[in-house]
Each structure stands twice: as structure tokens, then as C-alpha cells.
């Protein structure tokens, strides 16, 4: 019972992190703050994908074959976690970093043109046509 409570606690706090990062992306005015919230959203989504592949058993090992024999293989299958979500998440982490680099460059360029990173002020500057 207490194990189920702890596991539910983990899942619920992860969901709360997702919700608060979506709030940050939508509501906060600064572009840099939106970038920080976007990375938190990416990280928690990746963590959720990893949690789907986890197994709640005691001798649990990472998906790397320890001994290259047939007995080792049967022991490995009995206690290894699911490797498929991990393989999908690795590329997602690095690609997310590259996309964040692109967003950061765009923020710097917007600051050079408009002189601010506040979304409302950027809208005003664009409406006035000062650029």
C-alpha cells in the first residue's frame, strides 16, 4: 500500500510539474522565461516516457547485458527495464537542445531589433512600425 502511495506521489508531482510549465509558457511575458519553461516541459515529458518503461520489481537492472551467456540472458530478461522508451528519449534530449539553441538565437535577434524581450512591448513596437 505504501509503495502504491509513493508511486502515485511521484506521478502526481510529475503531472504538477507539467501543468506549471505549461502555465509558464502561456502566461509569463518574458521570452527567456518562456524558453526556461519550455525546457522544463521537455524534461518532464521525457521523464514520463521513461517511467512508462519502468518495472517495479526489486533486482532491476539497466538494459545492458551483464554476461554474454545464455543463463545471463534469461536472468537479464527477468529483471531488465524496457529499452524502447530510453532509445526514443536520447534523441529527443539532444534534438531539444538544438531547437533551444535556435530559439535562443532568435531571442537575441529580436532583442537587437526591438530593444526588449517582453512580449507586450514587442507587440507595441511592431504596431508602431518603428523598425
Amino acid at each position, binding site marked *: *500500500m505504501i*509503495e*502504491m*502511495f509513493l*508511486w*502515485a*506521489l511521484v*506521478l*502526481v*508531482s510529475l503531472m*504538477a510539474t507539467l501543468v506549471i510549465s505549461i502555465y509558464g509558457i502561456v502566461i509569463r511575458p518574458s521570452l527567456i522565461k518562456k524558453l526556461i519553461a519550455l525546457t522544463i516541459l521537455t524534461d518532464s515529458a521525457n521523464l514520463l516516457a521513461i517511467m512508462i*518503461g*519502468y*518495472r*517495479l*520489481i526489486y533486482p532491476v537492472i*539497466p*538494459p*545492458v*547485458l551483464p554476461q*554474454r551467456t*545464455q543463463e545471463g*540472458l534469461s536472468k*537479464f*530478461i527477468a529483471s*531488465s*527495464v*524496457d*529499452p*524502447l522508451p*530510453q*532509445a526514443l528519449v*536520447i*534523441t529527443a*534530449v*539532444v*534534438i531539444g*537542445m*538544438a*531547437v533551444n*539553441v*535556435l530559439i*535562443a*538565437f*532568435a531571442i537575441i*535577434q529580436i532583442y*537587437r531589433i526591438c*530593444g526588449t524581450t517582453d512580449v507586450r512591448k514587442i507587440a507595441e513596437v511592431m504596431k508602431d512600425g518603428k523598425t
Partner: protein
Amino acid sequence: MKRGHIIALGVFIALILLVSLGITFVGKVPMTTDVRPLGLFYLKNSYFGNYAARSPEVVTSILWDYRGLDTLFETGVFFLAIISALALFRIEKKEEKVKEKGEGFTFIVKDTVRIISVLIVAVSAAIALHGHLTPGGGFQGGSALAVVPLLIIVAFSKYALEGRGLTKDTAMIVRSIGLISIIILVLIPLAAGGYLMQNLPVFPSHILGQLTSGSLVFYNLFEYIAVGAGFTAVFLLLSIPEKVFHKIIGGEKE
């Protein structure tokens, strides 16, 4: 940190505890104790079996053998993002040669960085080249290698790095070499009569008595070079001081 934040955090954590207690007593949480059939197939067939990649590391074998085309196009997305980031910062005029060396940090930090950067290169190469035996691989090693130019930029300066010959263009050339090598490795099995990105019968599973898992070690090596050089190019461009940009863009005073 204000008082409102503390109260809001307390309310949030109490809410999380209450919700999870409610879920425990009323509902049901999925607590899986077995692997899905697809994952079980990968676990069984990674080293033994007819469809094997001959690699004890299951994640790397999924990454570059079973789902290789997926990873190939992810690499394409990575390079498109880097290229568009470089295009946003394009400088029309030549950046004038700066003679000054830049002060950098204190000598204690400089000496430590001299020792540590060699160590990081060794660690990242070990991570990337043993990617088919132990956890690690091209992406991990490349993102670890990208920290070395960052450390040198912060401890010495950007000009110390460019004086040694590692400019943005060099990094781009190295990155292109890595990408072209990956494409050639993808196309080699077609010439040998197989299909795209085929691994085992085309490439040998052992070289000089060492387990190399077919083409996995080569993919890891070139991905390592490409990712590291791509991040290096980005950060070299990002560390140009803002004054230089104002001079080049056209003297806007702010």
C-alpha cells in the same frame, strides 16, 4: 523569495499529497512488473538470435540498427536547427581581426582548465567509442565534447581558441565531414547487395578479435565528431561580444 511563494508552495505540496492519498485509497495506479512484447523482442535479440545486432547494449542497438532510419532523420533535424541558428547570426562583412588576447580568468582557473579539458576529451571519447559495450554513444559523447570549447572560452577567451585555428569555419568543416561519413556508411550496404542501413552480414562483428558490433562503432564515432563540432560552432558564434555586432550591423546606439 517572497512570502507569497512559500504559501503557494505549501498549498501545492499539500494538494499533491492529498491527491496521491486519494488515488491510493480510491483509484488504482498502474504498477507494471513485466516488459511489453516489443521491448521483450529487443531484449532477447540484441546479442543472440537471428536478428541480432551483436551488441550487449540494447539501447544503442535500437538506436542505430533496429530504428536506424529514425535516428538518421533526427540527426537531419539536429543539423537543420544548427544551420538555421548560424543563418540567423550571419555576418555580411568580414569580422576584423582582433589582436588583443583577452584577459580571461585568474591563473588558478586557467591551470585547472588546462588539466580538466584534456580529461574531458578522454572521457567523452571513451563514452562514444565504447557506446556498443557500455552506456553511452555518439550523442552523449558529442554533447560531452562540446563542453571543452565552452570551458576554454570562459577560462581564457574566445580569441585564444581562434588563435589556435579552431574558428567557426573549421568547426563547420569537421561537422560536414562527420555528416558525409554517416551518409556513406548508410549507402555502403546498398553497394554490397543489401538494404539501407543494414548492419551485420555486411560489416564484420569482430575486428582484430574485439567486439565492434558491425557498423555501430562507426556510427557512434562519426556522430560524436558531428555533434561536438556542431555545438562548438554555435558557441563560437555566440561568444562574439555585442560591441562587435553593433559595429558591424550599422552603428545603432543603445
